[in-house]
């Protein structure tokens, strides 16, 4: 890494990758909420994973200590991230691998495209990876005529369905098995037309389809769950074994990883190998853990690359409150417990990172102006914070990002918004009890709205969203403070 100051850290660029949605969250959510099949699929799936996670977490007496250890390791790592990254580069290079640095999605896509083109291959197989989805790698490869095949079963379903993932761990959580059967019958070459929607039959069909790809592909592309800086080791956790095929069979292996994913030592890794499977799939241990460092003669890929991607992470690291979001190990426990995610699903968030963690990560990677509705897509109920294995205080970061958004709006606009005006007015009214008391009396006019029915059923915008589904209580004839004064109660 260069020691020269390269200017302010940059956000993830526009026009590439999958961090920005076409619509603000409330609009996209409205569409999702109306989809009854989606509501049923999500409700069923999240409830199942929630129960599994709760069961395996309750087995451990020291779960809270593990969470605190995970938080402490990640926080300490981030304070010296530059040193750890250089250590990782040295160790990975010493073992025969090549490290590439990419400031953003475009640079990362260019590096990977160049590496694949150098092999002369037109096809690559992929291990499930969030980083490559974030930067839009498949689209970049497709643009130069290289086909990227997803090999994770759920990613395969998403890819064949010309769909986008809606969950970090279970990208096809919005699909049920009969929908998956239809996608396979429609899109999978040579599939048995008698295919049923029995899970085992669907898995067998996918296996036959993928096995051909594994045996022919010369280039594999992966992400990484962790990198151990000390030894230059990359780590992938998965459940199917398809990842291990991609990591070992091709001649060239290219790993794309966000710069925040490293841990200093193997001792640190031990903590996360306990936290991650229990939090994500609700398993005590994940079925396949693959680790590799550089190149090994006569065993596995001969050409091994690591692409380290920033894409807004350094900018996130610069925010004292927001930086804790980079501690995320992408387990998805927060979305499985989130009452908003459970009802809207992942697509409404517009980013490859959905749910509570997406609401605090995407706006920081892109700059808040491009994902301004996401920090408000939460009731601040706090279920995510309780579930997070590295104790990211998501509600506090949401509140912080809302403040940051409002502060930025204040700087950008000379004319304050209607909301800003009403908030300033409310602040003025509520700074003294005299004004507040006068406002209470004025609000009694509201009694006229509901005079006939004894309740208020319609409010003007922007409050019409409330009254569309909920009645409003009539303002009382007498406020509490008036009652208290009438009673002659003590006021000091």
């Amino acid at each position, binding site marked *: 890494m260069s020691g020269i100051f390269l200017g302010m850290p940059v956000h993830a660029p526009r026009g590439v990758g999958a961090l920005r949605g076409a619509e603000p969250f409330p609009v996209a959510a409205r569409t999702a909420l109306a989809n009854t099949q989606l509501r049923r699929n999500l409700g069923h799936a999240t409830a199942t994973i929630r129960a599994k996670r709760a069961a395996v977490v309750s087995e451990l007496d020291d779960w809270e200590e593990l969470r605190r250890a995970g938080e402490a390791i990640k926080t300490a790592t981030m304070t010296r991230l530059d040193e750890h990254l250089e250590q990782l580069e040295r160790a990975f290079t010493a073992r025969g691998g090549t490290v590439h640095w990419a400031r953003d999605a475009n640079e990362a896509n260019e590096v990977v495209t160049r590496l694949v083109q150098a092999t002369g291959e037109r096809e690559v197989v992929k291990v499930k990876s969030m980083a490559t989805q974030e930067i839009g790698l498949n689209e970049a490869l497709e643009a130069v005529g290289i086909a990227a095949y997803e090999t994770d079963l759920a990613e395969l379903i998403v890819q064949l369905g010309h769909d986008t993932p809606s969950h970090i761990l279970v990208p096809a959580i919005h699909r049920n098995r009969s929908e998956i059967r239809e996608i396979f019958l429609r899109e999978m070459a040579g599939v048995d037309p008698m295919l049923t929607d029995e899970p085992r039959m669907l898995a067998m069909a996918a296996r036959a389809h993928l096995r051909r790809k594994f045996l022919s592909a010369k280039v594999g592309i992966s992400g990484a769950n962790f990198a151990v800086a000390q030894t230059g080791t990359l780590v992938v956790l998965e459940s199917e074994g398809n990842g291990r095929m991609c990591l070992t069979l091709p001649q060239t292996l290219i790993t794309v990883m966000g710069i925040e994913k490293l841990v200093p030592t193997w001792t640190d890794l031990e903590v996360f190998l306990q936290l991650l499977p229990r939090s994500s799939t609700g398993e005590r241990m994940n079925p396949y853990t693959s680790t590799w460092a550089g190149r090994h003669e006569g065993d596995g890929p001969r050409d091994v690359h690591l692409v380290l991607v920033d894409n807004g992470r350094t900018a996130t690291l610069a925010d004292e409150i927001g930086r804790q979001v980079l501690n995320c190990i992408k387990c998805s426990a927060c979305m499985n417990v989130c009452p908003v995610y459970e009802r809207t699903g992942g697509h409404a968030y517009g980013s490859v990172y959905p749910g509570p963690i997406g609401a605090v990560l995407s706006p920081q990677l892109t700059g808040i102006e491009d994902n301004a509705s996401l920090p408000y897509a939460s009731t601040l109920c706090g279920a995510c*914070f309780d579930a997070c294995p590295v104790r990211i205080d998501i509600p506090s970061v949401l509140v912080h990002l809302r403040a940051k958004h409002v502060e930025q709006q204040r700087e950008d606009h000379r004319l304050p918004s209607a909301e800003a005006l009403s908030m300033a007015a409310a*602040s003025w009214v509520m700074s003294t009890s005299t004004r*507040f008391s006068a406002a209470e009396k004025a*609000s009694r006019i509201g009694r006229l709205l509901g005079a006939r029915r004894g309740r208020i059923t319609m409010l003007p915008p922007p409050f019409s969203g409330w009254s569309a589904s909920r009645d409003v209580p009539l303002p009382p004839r007498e406020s509490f*403070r008036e009652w208290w004064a009438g009673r002659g109660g003590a006021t000091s």
Partner: protein
Amino acid sequence: MRIALFVTCLGDALFPDVGKATVMLLERLGHEVVFPDRQTCCGQMHVNTGYQHEALPLVRHHVEVFEPYDVVVAPSGSCVGSVRHQHAMVARRHGEERLAARAEGVGARTYELSELLVDVLGVEDVGAFFPHRVTYHPTCHSLRMLRVGDKPLRLLRNVRGIDLVELPDADQCCGFGGTFAVKNADTSTAMLADKMRNVLDTRAEVATAGDASCLMQIGGGLSRLRAGTRTLHLAEILASTEEVVA
């Protein structure tokens, strides 16, 4: 004990019965209640909507009004959460370290009603009488910000005549979330629909909780549907006696 009541802006303006019930209950238990009448609002709505700059004068005002008191009670988990966990944060964001320290002091002396009763006053049976079928919704901020645990349920179990039924998926948010209910009205309503389904499944006559705001959401939905189930604040049930039934 001399207890200062922070009635909350919502309680003062829209739900005065909650404050009245809190007063009646504490006086019945032999305590003296003071209502510092310069009080207004904790500023939570401002903070949670991003307007921390506008919340700062409210935080300062709240600290000045309640600093003289040893024990403060509010019939709201959410507002106590704001006083305890957000006031110092707002002060610090504006570089006001001294105000932050004072806010932390007030926060440490401010209790949600069930905390005050069980932890400070050491009472679980408040001598209440309420002969109705009731289900209890633990509000998110009382549950996860204040960690009140089962204190409200312990108080309810000691109410004579009550038929207390467990609410399925009780710890799921009702969908209120302050301005969330307006900014994300559709999602808020979807969450409310599930909460109402669970409430109605209990066949309770009354749904209760420790926050008037969440009850405004649940009650607003039940009223719209003419569901035949009403909402009452925990304080109103605990204040209820054979002589004066809520």
